[in-house]
């Protein structure tokens, strides 16, 4: 990545921020795994509505109803909300003391919005409480926010990108449920892993190890940049293929390994494909 970025790095000495970035990346890894469990259990549509959960506010859905496929999907949504919060904090932290006024303003706006929402929609008290609660937390946090110097601009841009990506992920996940489109699920799965990589990169760029790496002084005579770019692109293609396979439930379309239906290259004629698809039917269907 240093070869690709080819920028000089300003040392950041905020150890707590470094640790927090690692923690956020680890939490995201857990979220990606939980998302995988949702697909493995075929529970992606076990909660047919969004952003609510069977008509309840996401955060107030009774534990007694976390049954069957709902358990996996609901845990995934809660975990995603947590990672969203962690990422927001990370993005703000990278701005250091400059985040304080933003937090005060955003907190005030959210508290006001919560109060107005409660007056206009009294039946949605839970949502009003949530809005006001978030606003209050942000407002109070502004007074305790770290007074550190902002991170280098490029790192702050990565932080904002991470924030925008996690918001997009939330929306994509919700639209996947409401629009019933497999393509959205595939994009959601691929973007999840790219988001995880982004957080890992933010954590890595703040480590002492990374900051001690020498910047490349010579021209790339051996075309390493091209080589690494191609390899990275191929990995991305594999991620997309994997996400497509998973969301079309084709994971067991070929039951043997390393052969495929006993051959190096399986029969791909129409009759053979029909037979393979017949075998792919759910065991209990």
């Amino acid at each position, binding site marked *: 990545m240093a070869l690709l970025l080819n920028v000089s790095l300003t040392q950041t000495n905020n150890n707590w921020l470094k640790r927090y970035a690692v923690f956020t990346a680890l939490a995201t890894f857990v979220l990606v795994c939980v998302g995988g469990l949702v697909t493995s*259990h*075929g*529970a*992606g*549509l*076990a*909660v*047919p*509505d969004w952003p609510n959960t*069977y*008509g309840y506010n996401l955060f107030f859905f009774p534990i007694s*109803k976390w*049954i*069957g*496929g*709902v358990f996996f999907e609901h845990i995934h949504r809660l975990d995603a909300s947590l990672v969203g919060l962690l990422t927001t904090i990370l993005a703000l932290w990278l701005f250091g003391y400059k985040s304080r006024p933003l937090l005060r303003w955003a907190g005030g706006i959210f508290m006001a919005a919560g109060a107005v929402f409660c007056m206009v929609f009294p039946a949605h008290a839970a949502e009003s409480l949530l809005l006001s609660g978030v606003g209050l937390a942000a407002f109070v946090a502004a007074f305790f926010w770290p007074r550190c110097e902002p991170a280098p601009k490029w790192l702050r841009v990565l932080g904002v990108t991470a924030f925008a990506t996690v918001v997009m992920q939330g929306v994509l996940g919700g639209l996947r*449920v409401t629009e*019933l489109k497999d393509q959205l699920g595939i994009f959601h799965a691929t973007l999840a892993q790219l988001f995880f990589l982004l957080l890992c990169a933010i954590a890595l760029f703040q480590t002492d190890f990374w900051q001690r790496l020498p910047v490349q002084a010579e021209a790339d005579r051996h075309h390493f940049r091209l080589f690494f770019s191609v390899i990275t692109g191929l990995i991305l293609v594999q991620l997309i293929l994997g996400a497509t396979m998973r969301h079309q439930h084709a994971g067991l379309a070929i039951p043997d390994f390393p052969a495929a239906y006993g051959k190096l290259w399986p029969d791909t004629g129409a009759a053979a494909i*029909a*037979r393979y*698809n*017949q*075998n792919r*039917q*759910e*065991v*209990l*269907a």
Partner: protein
Amino acid sequence: MKKFALLLSVVVLAGSLQLSLAGDVTGKITLKGTPPPPIDLPYDDTCSKLHPTILTTRFYVVGKDNGLANVFVYISKGLEGKKFAAPTEVVELDQVTCNYNPYVFGVMVGQPLRIKNSDPLMHNIHALPKVDGNAEFNFAEPSQGDINDTKWVESIKAPEVMLKLKCDVHQWMFAYAGVQDHPYFAVSDADGNFKIANVPAGSYTLTAYHLKVHGAKPGESKDITVADSPVTANFTLEVPAPQ
């Protein structure tokens, strides 16, 4: 007055002739071969309380004299160009003891399907059509007594054999609908018997389709001719060889 009486008589006679030139198509579906044993459904704790004995898959329900249940029998050719009004009679699909009842059913395009939750826990109803013109849908019925009479008719506009419905909360729950644009279909009963009533006189292709016997294949067909007496059409379906 005389002319009116004469006209009325002609109309009544024509109607009677029409009725008398229709017949019932009956038959029995028999299974040949030994089907694989049923699989116990992996009920969770909540569903186990509703049904203390273990329920199994309903892939091959074999009754008296090897009669095979849940075969969708329908006229697949011979009705082209004819239009039939959808009946107003409501077909009911119930979710009870964490299972769909019935497992296989027939319904006409435009005929109302009542989807009901008789369980004291939540289900979602997720339809997965494959035919163009039929829209996928997924909605919740979180409480006992929830009923939906409109979603099916709003979403399903074209014939399809078989349209899968599932519950994503309970991974073992499936039902299958045979959707036709005419009323001449039936589902074989526990002993493999079926009856399609009042089929108009004519020559047709009758098709019998079973989920596991036929899978991706179109089902077994035979030609029949309906005149003014009942027609019997029996089918013998064979358990497919393991792949």
